[in-house]
């Protein structure tokens, strides 16, 4: 209901663009157009069936029919999940950072969402995708991890916890769950992060970023990440990456939260508004330029 009301308020052209950038379910077949000026590939609805698609949408609401799914001939580039989360491992600890915006269409529902869930003292999960799904299933995972501790008298490893969640997700395939979780923690094998998806995908790597702002975050992370960073530099890198993602992505913003997990457990290291960071970085950039020009 709310979704339809929002759609009616916004004009037809921007409707499709908003849907894409906010990653809402229900898809429209897009053509891809290369903007010669900027070199960006832009999805636009084909003019031939634009009216029909609009009418369908407005009448039926969002459609899950197979024919509106990804056409193998015309793959859509779709950044789903309006958020930016990231995590990376260093030699002896893990850094996890998230934004805190929840968007419903073109409306910012909240700018203070807690997207980092503490599963236990040593393991943390992030929220991306469907907020309800993530919150509920990470809560279920918390209870399962606690049961593991009680039954086996040892702390659960991140690998085991992520496998528990991945198996649950795999068994619920086809039910429309939407999750993109980064599980990060420190256990007997050291620091590790896993990416777990609502498809049942589970991947282990040293660096992940999930969400609609993740491409922007990857740009900063890939250029500056090193596995031997000191903690202050690692936290600054995480902050900077989320800041740049929130700057460019409409569906990310609010306060930036950074958590560090080491052998002593998970602790919240920094929380601040991204607009304050913006001021700080712009001032630093201006100062750098004026220094350069004066030398």
């Amino acid at each position, binding site marked *: 209901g709310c979704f339809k009301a929002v759609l009616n308020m916004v004009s037809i052209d921007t409707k499709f663009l908003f849907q894409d950038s906010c990653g809402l*379910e229900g*898809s429209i077949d897009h053509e891809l157009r290369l903007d010669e000026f900027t070199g960006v590939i832009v999805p636009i609805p084909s003019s031939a069936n634009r009216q029909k698609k609009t009418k369908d949408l407005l009448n039926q609401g969002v459609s*899950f029919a*197979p024919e509106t*799914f*990804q056409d193998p001939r015309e*793959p859509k*580039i*779709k*950044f*789903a999940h309006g958020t930016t989360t990231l995590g990376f491992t260093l030699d002896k600890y893990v850094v996890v950072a998230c934004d805190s915006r929840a968007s419903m269409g073109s409306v910012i529902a909240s700018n203070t969402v807690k997207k980092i869930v503490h599963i236990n003292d040593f393991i943390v999960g992030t929220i991306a995708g469907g907020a309800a799904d993530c919150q509920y299933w990470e809560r279920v995972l918390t209870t399962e991890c606690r049961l593991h501790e009680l039954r086996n008298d040892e702390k659960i490893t991140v690998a085991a916890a992520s496998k528990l969640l*991945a198996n649950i*997700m*795999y068994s619920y*395939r*086809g*039910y*429309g769950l*939407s999750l993109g979780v980064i599980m990060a923690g420190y256990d007997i094998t050291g620091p590790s992060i896993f*990416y777990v*998806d*609502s*498809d*049942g*995908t*589970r*991947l*282990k*790597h040293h660096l*992940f970023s999930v969400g609609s702002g*993740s*491409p922007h975050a*990857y740009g900063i992370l890939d250029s500056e990440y090193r596995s031997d960073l000191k903690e202050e530099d690692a936290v600054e890198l995480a902050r900077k990456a989320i800041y740049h993602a929130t700057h460019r992505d409409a569906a990310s913003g609010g306060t930036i939260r950074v958590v560090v997990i080491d052998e002593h457990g998970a602790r919240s290291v920094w929380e601040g508004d991204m607009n304050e960071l913006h001021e700080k970085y712009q001032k630093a950039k201006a100062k750098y330029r004026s220094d350069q020009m004066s030398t």
Partner: protein
Amino acid sequence: RDIVVRFRKNEPERSNVPNMTDITFGVVGKDYVLMASDTTIARSIFKMKNNQNKIRTLDNHILMAWNGPVADSINFSDYIERNLELYRFRNHSSLSVHAGAYYIRNELATAIRSRSPYQVNILLGGVDKNGPALYFMDYLGSIMKVNTGIQGYAQHMTYSLMDKQWHEDMSLEEGIALIKDCIAEMKKRFLISFDDTTFQIVDKDGVRVLDNP
């Protein structure tokens, strides 16, 4: 009666569906089977991971290279690996490569018309008392014993190279050179880039990874 293969209804759009972009090769040589695969995992237009081993070792003497969405592939590989181990525990001997291949094919064929089919294409290679053998398997449950096996889009680009260069009783150097030529062709012509590849070989001594082929 029409036979319809229907995957899960109402499945939300899966951004890692293009499983044809996984690259795996398998070559039967004199007394070995050499397999190579790329190591990239992609989601939509991004590479999420670039050091994923897509060739699974089963039972210490069989290599199984998988192609397909990560979730299906890993779950299916785990399931097969553990069932083969269970067979070994129960019967005090491992399944032969031929029997193992047909067991896997049976699982795929049973799954295809069930509620949740596995979208995994398999290349299975192993060496036992019958010599080296390579099997090509499809997610629909087809199976074919082959000398040169390729999965995915790579088939279009490298089957001709394999047909030209493969011959009976190839030495290890010739096998490595053949696969390297195929990889070079993929790097030249395939739209989707990949950085690393992993080479694994199985012979009568078992399975090992070739670090610098």
